[in-house]
């Protein structure tokens, strides 16, 4: 997924002279062609995320469209004030490509997990947040990013994630995508939890239950209309996210339902509890420990339908 994003930046740079790339001491992989073709628009900077955000604000104020790539934790937390003031207050077209969103870096421990990135960026006006589910969708995000107004954060997943998106369903930043439609339950997902939700829908089908899987690739601006549309057709609504339950997808769906007077629908949220994860191991193991699996999602859905 990161590869797709970085190769797309190169494509965009060929199309538009305003595009610049800024990395923060990251691997050369997938960047060599950009560096060779556009050396004056290629910046490999030091490990100072606060500065990089401000620098990209200055570049954007002067007509450039900077794409920044570094690890999601450092791109969201370390420079939060710079993102808020320099980018969002000024509504500048800077693209933040955060590698390893969620628990991708699980074996490296809690300093490297970005499990609150969506929540802290949701709180900032003018920010746009996108979490694509696979590399194909990443390409669509990147192609639309060029002309997107204001700052954009793209959460990059581990890579090699099963491709479930398709051109046939279309793609527009800000518009949720129904991946399949059913009558019994609405499963709302984002990023790579969409694959989990699709698997859960398969499991439910074995029990004769049909599910809608609504893929929320854009957390902000939030597509309240589609959430309400599909929630109105469902007997229960569940959300699943690779993120803390504080302030992410589940919160956004709950807010949407409550604000619209639809809070009565049976509802459950799957995500990380409000703790620092203690375990190492793999992304899948950590997610499994906290119930972010298709089996658990299907079981929770059945539980809600029975209740």
């Amino acid at each position, binding site marked *: 997924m990161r590869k797709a994003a970085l190769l797309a930046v190169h494509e965009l740079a060929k199309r538009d002279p305003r595009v610049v790339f800024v990395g923060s001491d990251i691997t050369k992989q997938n960047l060599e062609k950009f560096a060779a073709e556009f050396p004056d628009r290629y910046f490999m900077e030091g490990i100072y995320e606060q500065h990089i955000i401000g620098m990209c604000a200055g570049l954007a104020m002067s007509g450039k469209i900077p794409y920044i790539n570094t690890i999601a934790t450092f791109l969201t937390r370390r420079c939060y004030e710079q993102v808020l003031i320099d980018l969002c*207050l000024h509504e500048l077209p800077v693209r933040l490509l955060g590698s390893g969103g969620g628990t991708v870096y699980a074996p490296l421990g809690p300093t490297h997990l970005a499990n609150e990135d969506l929540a802290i960026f949701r709180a900032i006006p003018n920010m746009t947040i996108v979490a694509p589910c696979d590399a194909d969708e990443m390409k669509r995000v990147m192609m639309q990013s060029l002309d997107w107004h204001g700052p954009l954060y793209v959460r990059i997943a581990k890579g090699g994630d099963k491709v479930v998106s398709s051109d046939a369903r279309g793609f527009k930043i800000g518009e949720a995508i129904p991946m399949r439609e059913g009558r019994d339950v609405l499963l709302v997902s984002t990023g790579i939890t969409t694959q989990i939700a699709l698997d859960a829908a398969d499991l439910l089908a074995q029990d004769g239950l049909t599910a809608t899987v609504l893929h929320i690739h854009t957390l902000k601006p939030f597509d309240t209309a589609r959430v309400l549309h599909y929630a109105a057709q469902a007997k229960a609504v569940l959300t699943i996210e690779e993120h803390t339950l504080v302030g992410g997808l589940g919160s956004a769906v709950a807010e949407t339902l409550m604000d619209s007077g639809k809070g009565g629908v049976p509802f459950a949220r799957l995500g990380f509890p409000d703790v620092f994860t203690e375990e190492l191991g793999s992304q899948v193991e950590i997610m499994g420990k906290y119930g972010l699996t298709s089996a658990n999602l299907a079981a929770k859905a059945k539980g809600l339908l029975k209740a």
Partner: protein
Amino acid sequence: MEQRALIDSRGKDHRRLILQMLVGSGRGHVGAALSVMEIVRVLYDDILRVDPKQPRWADRDRFIFSKGHGCLALYVMLAEKGFFPKEELLRSCHFGSMLGGHPESRKTPGVEASTGALGHGLSIGVGCALAARIDKKDWRTFVLIGDGESNEGSVWEAALSAGKHRLANLTVLVDYNKFQSYGPSKDIQDLEPFADKWRSFGFAVREVDGHDVPALREALNATPFDAAKPSALICHTVKGKGFKTTEHNADWHHKAKVKPEELALLLIELEGLP
């Protein structure tokens, strides 16, 4: 470096305006505005290539006022140059005003960046200077920062980067008034050897009396000090410069609700200046 320069009649006019703004808005960071007043004056009088009728002119020089709390001085000069009507000065900080307690580019013509949180402006300036270099444009970037602001690590991140990129089209002006909110900087976070720090980060450095208008003009006209390095002009200033009451007085870092008798005393002090 001692500050021996006297405040001339224009400097007194500027200070009267700052006092009027302080009364009009009900509050303000007086000390910082008084220490940067001559720096901002010389920039707008003699150095910056800007056009008040086209504040967003693409080829203008960029001036990032990073120590945003000193904005009363910036507003005085922007109004004097015609970026907005002088009447605006008297209603700053009020609902519907275009002038806030910290500068905002969305509201105020001539303000390049919204600042106030310290340690942001130099990085923005580095980005502007890089953009000019990419586009092969000759416009330049100037960033005014404070000495207290230089406590922020992000200032030194930006300095590292400016040095690395050898941004000769970037000048940082440091308002070295040696005082911060709590008191003397040397007691809170000493910055010495300050000029050496900037040199070691790759800047060509000069020092100047920051209230000496001809000296400031001469120094700024000499930028870049080195054709292959960013320039740092350390301006030795006096916080609260121009009034006995406010000079070196942390109580006047930020002042709200100035009493009429305090204002009268300040005006007398101003008239009594040599």
